[in-house]
């Protein structure tokens, strides 16, 4: 009897013992793809997903970026029931200043550098392994050109916020970040990244080894994307006031001096897919309350020339004014009509205006021509004012104000022409800030 039990128990014990003594298994990240996974054996499918990630990450916190530029540039007010800092800090109400550890700078700043990191990691994967079995040299070159163009564009958006405070240009090695560089060094750095990208794209053959979203239609092969690269370079050169370079970049860009092609360019796409994001700048007009609204700064309406169709495109009159924090307006921003509308990265209307700007001193006739294309498209009569550089600059800035409304240009334009003091002050103690501080966690 006893023996029987002992045998049974010993059998059970040995079973348990076997189970207990075996090795512990090591697991990877069960829920997400690890960065390490791509360091060896990058496939075409992987590259598609990684580039798709750039399309995603370049849109994160864009709403905050545009609100930063739009509110400080006095294009519109951002009313929010749960966020008083839009009408406080950003407008410099009663001694308030821009904080270095608040969402309006930390959010977009971190998101742009995240996107840069996504791109730098792909560049590292490409350079760190022999991919000749998977990709042709031209495909890899095209990919690098695409990525460098995006890196430059993302860096430029951050520089637009911090301006004279500068940015970090060299962020490839997360353990050894490059220094903060001045605005002028940053601009020339960005321009040379773009030029490297242009070089890669020109050696990029006929096809990208990945597909892009519909916002890139017309510019989704290395050759046409090179035109986008040059368009962005033209913007950078304008910021550098290097107008001859602007013209030569525009020459190689998709600039078309044609009022019917104002919206040629590349765009961010949005969708209602659960893993996608919606257009952050869209707010329905029905049911709009001060709890969540973008209200047009009233001067934008009153300063407009009679019959300017761009008002109809961009704003909607409200039945009664919406007010918050001693600010009020009866027009709401309606730049985007649905929550899946595209947001432009760069488009022909800006290029025409850059062309006009670059010709002000050298060729004022071309400036007037270009401005008249814009005016015509808005239903306005041709420009009849004086053609001295100061007058043309005024007119060019006005057309930029209305053509590129709520696209993040007004504040930067007024800043580069030293005209921030001309922006309207809505409350006596308000301030117009010229730049954001560097985020606290950069430890500067």
């Amino acid at each position, binding site marked *: *009897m006893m023996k029987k*039990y*002992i045998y049974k*128990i010993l059998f*059970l*014990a040995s079973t*348990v*013992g076997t189970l*207990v*003594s*075996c*090795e*512990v*298994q*090591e*697991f990877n*990240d*069960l*829920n*997400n*793809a690890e*960065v390490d996974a791509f360091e060896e054996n990058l496939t075409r499918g992987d590259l598609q*997903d*990684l580039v*798709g*990630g*750039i*399309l*995603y*990450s370049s849109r*994160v916190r864009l709403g905050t970026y545009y609100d930063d530029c739009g509110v400080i540039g006095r294009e519109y007010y951002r009313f929010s029931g749960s966020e008083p800092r839009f009408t406080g800090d950003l407008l410099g109400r009663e001694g308030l200043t821009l904080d270095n550890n608040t*969402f309006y700078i930390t*959010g977009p*700043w*971190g998101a742009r*550098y*995240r996107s840069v*990191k996504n791109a730098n990691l792909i560049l590292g994967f490409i350079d760190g392994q022999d991919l000749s079995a998977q990709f042709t040299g031209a495909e890899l070159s095209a990919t690098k050109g695409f990525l460098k163009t995006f890196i430059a564009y993302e860096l430029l958006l951050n520089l637009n916020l911090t301006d004279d405070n500068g940015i970090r240009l060299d*962020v490839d090695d*997360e353990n050894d*970040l490059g220094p903060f560089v001045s605005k002028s060094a940053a601009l020339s750095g960005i321009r040379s990244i773009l030029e490297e990208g242009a070089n890669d794209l020109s050696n990029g053959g006929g096809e990208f080894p990945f*597909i*892009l*979203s*519909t*916002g890139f239609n017309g510019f989704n092969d290395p050759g046409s994307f090179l035109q986008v690269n040059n368009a962005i370079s033209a913007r950078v050169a304008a910021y550098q006031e290097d107008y001859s370079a602007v013209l030569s970049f525009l020459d190689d860009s998709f600039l078309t001096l044609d009022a019917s092609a104002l919206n040629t360019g590349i765009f961010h*796409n949005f*969708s*209602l*897919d*659960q*893993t*996608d994001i919606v257009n952050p700048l869209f707010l*329905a007009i*029905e*049911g709009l309350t001060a*709890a969540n609204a973008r209200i047009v700064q009233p001067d934008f309406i009153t300063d407009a020339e009679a019959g300017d169709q761009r008002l109809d495109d961009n704003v909607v009159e409200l039945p009664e004014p919406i007010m918050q924090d001693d600010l009020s307006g009866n027009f709401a921003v309606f730049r985007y009509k649905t929550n899946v509308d595209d947001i432009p990265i760069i488009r022909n209307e800006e290029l025409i205006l850059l062309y006009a700007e670059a010709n002000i001193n050298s060729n004022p006739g071309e400036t007037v021509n270009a401005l008249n294309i814009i005016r015509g498209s808005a239903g306005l009569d041709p420009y009849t004012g004086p053609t001295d550089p100061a007058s043309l600059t005024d007119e060019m800035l006005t057309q930029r104000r209305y053509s590129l409304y709520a696209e993040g240009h007004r504040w930067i334009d007024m800043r580069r022409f030293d005209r921030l003091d001309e922006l309207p002050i809505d409350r006596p103690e308000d301030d117009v800030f010229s730049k954001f501080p560097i*985020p606290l*966690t*950069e430890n500067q």
Partner: protein
Amino acid sequence: MKQNNFSHRYLLFLFLLFPFFAFSQTTLTGTVNNENGETVPFVNVIEKGTSNGTTTDVDGNFTIEVDELPAILVFSSLGFETQEFRAINRRPIEVTLGESAQALEEVVITGLATSIKRSNSANAVASLSAEEITGTTPPPTLDGALYGKFPGAIVNANSGAPGGGLSVKLRGATSIQGNTQPLYIIDGVYVDNSSIPAGLNTVSAASAGGSSSNQDNPTNRIADINPEDIANIEILKGASAAAIYGSRAAAGVVIITTKRGKAGETKFRFSQSVGWNEAINLLGVRDYTEQRVLDSFGEADRAAFVAARNAGRLVDYEEEVYGENGIISISNFSMSGGSEKTKFFAGVTHNNEDGIVKNTGYEKTSLRLNLDHSPEDFLKFTLSSNYIYSSSDRGFFNNDNSGTTIGIALTATRPWDQLFPNENGIYPDHPNNSSNPLQTRDLVTNRETVNRLIMGGTVNLDIYKADNSNLELILRGGLDFYGQQTRAIFPKELQFQKLSNGGLNGVSAQGDTQNKNYNLSAFLVHNYFTDSDINFRTQFGLTRENFNQNTQLITATGLVASESNVDQAANTGVNQARLLQEDSGFFAQEEINFKDMFIATVGIRGDKSSNNGDANELFYYPKASLAVNLNEFDFWDEGSAWNQFKLRAAYGEAGNFPPFSALFTSYNAFSTDGILGISLIGVRGDADLKSERQKELEFGTDIGFFNGRVNLSATYYIKTIDDLILQANLEPSSGYTTGFRNAGSLENKGIEIGLNTTPILTDDIQWNLGVNFFKNTSEITELTVAPFNVGAFGASLGTFRIEEGKSATQIVGSYPEGLRVIGNAEPDFQMGFNSDLRYKDFQFTMLWQWKNGGDNVNLTTLLTDLNRTSHDYDEFGADPSGELPNGQYRPGAPPEVHVEDASYVRLREVGLYYTLQKKKLAGILGGSIDSIKFGVSGTNVLNFFDYNSYDPEVSNFGGGSIFTGVDVLPFPSSKRFLFNVSVNF
């Protein structure tokens, strides 16, 4: 008792026939009673270490001759816990035997497979009996029964939502960003205590502002365990006691033993509790006047206010939402019994509770079957099995960024707003807010449903048994399996779901979690008794644990008609999270006992885990302890009133795993207009991350006077946690916002004092009074990353901050000159008072808990101020200059205005019972009823606090971290009143 009972008795009887063999003998007399005061016949009374013995007569009296005093008598009887009594003089002896399931207090766990007499333990292990857990009043959940009953724990409810949601923290801050909840083990089974969010964030957007913490406020799964089933809980509060549990034990271990059957007559017990709960504290309505309404809300509202006032239509919406009396019903039936070989305990409990908000509530059914089978003397099988069904409707509360939760919506609601549905059941849109709280309350579903099976089995085999040594083999296995469904359904007719209001046209978030944990272990225990009175106990064991959890959350938006199925929707998103961990280890321990004078223990646990950077590296966790019973020494005056004096010291180490994802730097998958893409998560992992290591040294003393009428236990501990795992800030230009690293050390020092007394003990009256005191202070002793803020909503509103040389739970605020410390969440001290007064068949018990100090970040007030609806909006006091009324001052005020003292004093539990004993029930049902107990009881009946929100006990971010006490419009807490009847037959 074993089946040789009768032969024993026979032998004893023979011995009694020959008393003349003894010389210079002392005669001891006494009586043995059970806990109900009835005498117990036929109890074996043996002089310890001899074969001298007797049994009690039919009236429970006995007489025994012993050679000399002092003598130790051992009392044992079928169905009762064996008890020893140390006779030091000839006074008549009174012994009360406890029924075995309820009398486990005398032993405490020291090894994975063994326990030790409490009087020999070197650790301050707290233990709670069934009487302490459920005796005063049925607790809402198991962890809710731990409040104030022993020193060393901070128990905090996250909100008042039905179905639980509590955190238990033992001996201070055990981790900054890792696990701080103790390990729960029930009958040897590692039990999961996850909190699985229901996906409410899709609607509330609570974490949209960058706060990635889960604010869904789910239940923690230990709430499934039925308190009525529990015989005993032991709490190993830190590494010095818990080192044998190794790499999961840093936050302490709660060891739960369930009730088991006893051989003998089959016993039945039925109990029913019925009652209600109601809100502890409602804030009230602002004192509106025409002028105030005009100033705050404008002319249109003034007119509406006047019209509603004149028509008597002003509504207290807070009362409307939170003013329900939720009905509670708890039914419990159990039976136990069996033969010498096979014993069983079977129980079923059904709880049904409504919350203080309509459409909230909690329902639970628990079935238990525990079996013990001993086919032979040397062999014993035990099986514990428990099936649980639970369902909780938790409503839609806590923080949001979309104005949709009920609490947030109420802050925007004014008494003259008309929110009630019309005769067709159509709810009006809220005039000042994106949601109508009455509509949200009535139409939103937020339900967690769990089906759970917990099974554990043990085999004990005495391989070898002799006079001076024995060897036992113990095999143990446990399984915890559950499926949890979460259903968060927001129908499209809700104000904030309407497309015209920018809504998603209905949201259905359905989550399914499968959780399977199993653990296996094998132990050998060897006891060796020497002639020189040194006893050795050696044990060795192997352990293996496996954890597997898989959660799939499907979020559908744009629902078709009134469908809630996730395929009947315009857009569907799926999220899957898996968790897999394998641990394997061994342990060895040696215990040396010299005449109960010195008890020394040394042990080591070695653990490896898939959750370490190197899965097959063994990490070692040593322990050592020494207890010295001075009262056992020869010099001790046996006759003195001071009868216990123990000094003890214990040291141990334990681990705490990194969060599961902390080892990896990974991408998340997204899409852009249909194109898949992967983008960095933004948190940099560290593949070389080490587990946190806790080292705890505790020492203390246990002192007893007057035969146990006064017992004092005092413990001081120093606990350091090295290799703190921190998710520290990185420069955002690196592409990452935070990164995991081992970056610091944390120290806790604390003192625990427990005093148990029996001031009155007569035939009719017995009064037990217990007091416990607990104080802990923490300090970050080393931090190798820059100080950082964590756990709240930013420094302008008051936030926690991790900083070297400072308390781990300090609260700072931002001021023009920089950050300033404005509070600390850690209480100054905590005390519990329990009183148990029995007069004849009446029993009155009370448990008071006092938490003194400890601050909260109260943003409930701020949010009501912003909407100008605060109950004290027009009062003065917050503004030190006295210029502005509170409601105007607070929103723009410096952060200290949001930091409030969260002290409280509560009557946690109170009960008044009367027991009808068997003799009075003799005429009923042929005398088959043993006793009937009935009475009234309550939970949180009296609450004293000076705190400007619903309850100072709150946590917007749940119970997972040490950063509780952030108050953002929670589900208000409630008090419970119950009528109870129980029948034993």
